């Protein structure tokens, strides 16, 4: 039978699951993972590694270019740019991680509940998601800032609300597809509880998708948080933060010192690229496993 032929062909082409994780990432994936590890380590070890106190102004170093003492020069207040870049990943990365953790947890719970319960519960959740979708993500964050005042908590709250419907929509449609499969019906007929089926069958089968989804959302969250900080509404000065440094660096650049803006911009781009590559690889594996 040709239909089963095709099914079988698709299944035999799968990658062996036992292949080592690194090899499955591919060379580019390994580079991306290494870059993220290096950034994380650097920022954790910044108190030891950074040559200067990131917050100490030095008028002699203000808007200075690169020099042996200050490899990337100084910012408008004369603070060492390299030291500030080393510290700067903390807020740039921890905020998005929190946003993704929260939105993935809330979104997945909502999605699986809606997909399993179906009927009215699903209709209510879907309408709610539709309404949330009618507002561009960054607007949520800005409104939250308008209410709570500039700062990280408002942005995290706003972006969590903004990201949750994306997670929920993707997971819900995958969960709806998955729950149509006969193995779920078989578990139900066997007398398994709804919670048991969701936790033991549905969730593990959706896990690769959820991971791929949250990794690629992480890239967007880094960009969004940095953009809001750039606008002056997120992380507040004098904290060393990449988004903020692009902002102050733009000012310095018009006055002849582009290294602060370039360095911070480049680092954000590299981190996001690395996260995207990882998300892409994980997503591709998920596709092959289907």
């Amino acid at each position, binding site marked *: 039978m040709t239909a089963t032929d095709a099914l079988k062909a698709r299944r035999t082409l799968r990658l062996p699951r036992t292949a080592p994780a690194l090899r499955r990432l591919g060379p580019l994936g390994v580079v991306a993972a290494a870059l993220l590890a290096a950034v994380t380590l650097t920022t954790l070890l910044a108190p030891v590694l950074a040559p200067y106190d990131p917050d100490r102004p030095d008028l002699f170093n203000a808007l200075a270019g690169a020099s042996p003492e200050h490899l990337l020069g100084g910012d408008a207040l004369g603070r060492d740019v390299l030291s500030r870049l080393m510290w700067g990943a903390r807020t740039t990365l921890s905020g998005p991680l929190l946003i993704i953790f929260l939105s993935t947890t809330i979104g997945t719970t909502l999605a699986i509940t809606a997909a399993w319960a179906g009927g009215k519960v699903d209709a209510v959740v879907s309408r709610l998601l539709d309404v949330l979708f009618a507002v561009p993500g*960054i*607007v949520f964050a*800005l*409104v939250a800032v*308008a*209410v709570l005042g500039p700062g990280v908590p408002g942005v995290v709250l706003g972006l969590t609300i903004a990201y949750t419907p994306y997670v929920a929509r993707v997971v819900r449609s995958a969960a709806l597809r998955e729950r149509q499969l006969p193995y779920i019906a078989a578990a139900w007929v066997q007398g398994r509880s709804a919670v048991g089926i969701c936790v033991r069958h549905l969730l593990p089968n959706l896990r690769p998708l959820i991971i791929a989804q949250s990794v690629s959302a992480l890239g967007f969250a880094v960009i969004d948080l940095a953009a809001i900080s*750039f*606008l002056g509404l997120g992380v507040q000065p004098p904290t060393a933060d990449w988004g903020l440094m692009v902002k102050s660096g733009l000012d310095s650049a018009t006055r002849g010192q*582009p290294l602060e803006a370039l360095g911070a*911009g480049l680092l954000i781009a590299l981190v996001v690229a690395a996260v995207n590559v990882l998300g892409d690889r994980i997503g591709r594996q998920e596709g092959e496993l289907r």
Partner: protein
Amino acid sequence: MTFLLRRLAGLAVVLVVASFLVYGLLYLVPGGPMAFLLGNRSGTPEQIAAIREQYRLDDPFLVRYLAWLGDALQGDFGTSLVYRQDVSALLGARSTTTALLVAYATVVIVAVGVAAGTLAGLRPGRADAVISALASAALAVPTFVIGVLLVIVLALGLGWFPVFGPGEGFLGRLHHLTLPAITLSLGSAAFLARITRASVREELGREHVETARSRGLAERHVVRRHVLRNASIPVVTVTGLTVASLLAGSVVVENVFALDGLGSLFVRAILQRDFAVVQAVVLVLVTAFVLVNLVVDLCCKALDPRLSR
């Protein structure tokens, strides 16, 4: 027709809910609306009375909301506490700048994204590799970083473009908007290129394309009438979503290039706690966003006969 009516009704519901939330937010602020409206300003009793009057703080919540909504429907969003000007007047001129910026960026996105994506989809190998790599790079760089880089290189370094400001006359404005529009469009164009490539690839592998080939139709004919035609459906959907998200992206870009549009007004209003302006801008953005989505749905329905039942 019933489809359109249903969609319009849904749209109205979304707008009512959004407006309710936007209005209600004022009351979620710690300390209540009064503390919020006064913000860091210290109010004299007269000012406080004036604010109470303007925001009808003595009426019940629903009455106030309905009154505000009624006014908003007539284009009256109240008076800005900072500018001491009608909010609608503040919005008017700035909307044009933002609309022009978004339109400019849309043209760039569709032209570059669809062309590059189609090319990459149809030509596996070098063209595909180059385009995919460029798209990945462009996707990783945040809008504001692109903007800052363009300012540093093209405007400050090479002096090809004006750095800041809106410009005079239509051509002048376009010239001034070129860097902002490129900034705004780069990431989205890359995203659209990816989607286009993926959907062209997917269609190329479809069974009905095999049928067309098995009938001896010329490859050009197969590509045009079957592959591209079918691939256009997801591309249109994503284009719409992208354009809608440009409305939000313009907030950032206007700030980089110091353009006086809705976005920069929005950010200033937030910083200065000018709530009448915040409410109005959010409503305008949501309305535009929802309208763009409606247009996309209509396009998809026209393109895909399976959707019209």
